[in-house]
């Protein structure tokens, strides 16, 4: 993992490449989301639940 990736993960940026790798490896026959759709879905999920932000 590069430093760039590490910083992105700490900031909480969704990992599209990781998702693609996961889908290739585990579910090669299923359709994958586009980058835009993936980012939107991940961000929406992040701001729906308590547990991502604190005082």
């Amino acid at each position, binding site marked *: *993992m590069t430093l*760039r990736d*590490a*910083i*992105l*993960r*700490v*900031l*909480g*940026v969704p*990992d*599209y490449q*990781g*998702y693609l*790798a*996961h*889908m290739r490896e*585990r579910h090669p026959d299923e359709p994958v989301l586009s*980058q*835009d759709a993936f*980012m*939107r*879905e*991940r*961000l*929406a*999920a*992040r*701001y*729906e*639940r*308590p*547990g*991502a*932000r*604190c*005082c």
Partner: protein
Amino acid sequence: MSKAARTTLWVGVALAGAGAFAMLALSRGETVNAAWLLTAAIATYAIGYRFYSRFIAQRVFQLDATRTTPAVRFNDGRDYVPTNRVIVFGHHFAAIAGPGPLVGPTLAAQFGFLPGTIWLLVGAVVGGAVQDFVILCASIRRDGKSLAAMAREEIGPVAGGMALFAILGIMIILIAVLGLVIVNALKSSPWGTVTLLLTIPIALFLGVYLRWVRPSRVLEATAIGIVLLIGALYAGQWAAATPAVAKMFTLSPIVLAWSLMVYGFAASVLPVWLLLAPRDYLSAFVKIGVVLALAIGILFLLPPLKMPALTRYIDGTGPVFAGSLFPFAFITIACGAVSGFHALISSGTTPKLLEREPDARPVGYGGMLTESMVAVMALIAACALTPGVYFAINSPASAIGTTVASAATAVSSWGFQVSPQDLSDLARQVGESSLLSRTGGAPSLAVGMATIFSGFFSGGGALALWYHFAIMFEALFILTVLDAGTRVGRFILQDLLGHISPALGRVSWYPGVVLASALFVAGWGVFLIQGVTGGFNSLWPLFGIANQLLAAIALSVGTTVIIKMGKPRYALVTLVPLVWLVAVTSTASVEKIFAADPRLGLLAHAKTVTGSLAFADYLDAIVAGFFLVSVLIVVFDAVRVWLRVISPTADLVAQP
């Protein structure tokens, strides 16, 4: 390292810590250097981490690297993603670190530096870090379940339901009190107002940039964002120096409060990629950067602590907030020692990322120690100020009047010498018309931070730039809680409303979204407005009580989990902080509601005022009562379960 060398090392750490504590506690009359406080802190954290967290990891939970974690078991490339522990630590810390640990210790400095220091260190090592760690362990053993879900399953439906209600109520108070911190920092401050206002178009620009111009180039966008933030800082300076513009942005507290409500509502209904996400990236970056810079600054300057170890305000007559050392020091400091909110993170995103069970120790326990260290730095920054200046900034106008002359006279008469000249000079140096009665903690911390930073880069109005940089940092920090919190609150509310009318629960039905957002904003808006008119003193203790009571719920869940593992003896790990928190918070709630002194007691205060102010007091009293009752219900419900489990006839199967 050989066993003998290790023993010598830890004996050395223990002696250094004990020696530093002795220096802090026994100093009388002369100033103590912050180096002693840092030494005591680091030694305490090191010993707590090395011995106590290991005991919890190995004996209580028997964390096992060969057991699969939810991240591995349910790996879906989205929510559940096995992640390196260093990254999880960073992510967890960025999520738990908020403005709370900066504000609380600053306020508690009115008791002197010693009570705050002791509670931050002891509270974190045996309370807060234990809570975060235990809840994280419990959650990874339960597929990454949330705190409310664990309360429901481990204790019962009553506790689960109460926990959910308590979380919603606590979020309302949290957002209101943090909003009030911003209002008090920005009132009549065109520089600060313009700078913070500009951060909103900057975030929107980054959102558009990341969506359409250069999709997902987050680091690049954040770098542009930081340059723009610095531009906003200078734009604010220009605005303050240009009379016509300055006049336009010299806003009253009530206007600022309404603006925050409009902003919170917008953030709740706008798409997250447009505003929340880019602003979050930016603020996470600034957050970690500033915390590191503050640590380095304090380490290099090692400022003397000008505040005495103890002030006479431990009797409860302090101007910053009412209430005596016990229980209010423990309520006020809140987040840096024990923060119930962390239990939501420890049972939220973090357990779904952990790759190995033993990683829970550095992330859960270690993450909280780091947060506590941030609070220690805030305490140092506050205590490094001249006490006279500290009290002039943090006391309400009712105590010190509205002119530098009246403030200097009042504060000096309390035994903290300060001249009118000192106060007006400082205000001029930081680029403000006045610093008097800027309650809420943020401005005095900003003065402290600016003093520390300008120790490196001084001259040419550096103090003013650093001061407004610090204000922008704190305000940005708070906005991230305010808008993300409003959005989460909207979802919880929609979830509850869905039980009444299914349409309202649908998150894609726009009228439902707007209605739930408006309701939730109105909920915290009521408390924000009453805080603006009634003062900071009443709202912060209410937040502290709420946060510590959420911790009591979390520790009840933790105790239940440990007892159900068949280890009632080890339940003391969570039972001891639980008993302490219940004692502290119930004393504080009862005093806050019923005390005869109108400065402290809400009901007594309601009799001295009329109209909306009296209404506010009754409302606060009801809220404090609600929090107390809901937590007592959870605790009693938990005790019932404990007794059933450990009774000889128990037939419950022990759970891992």
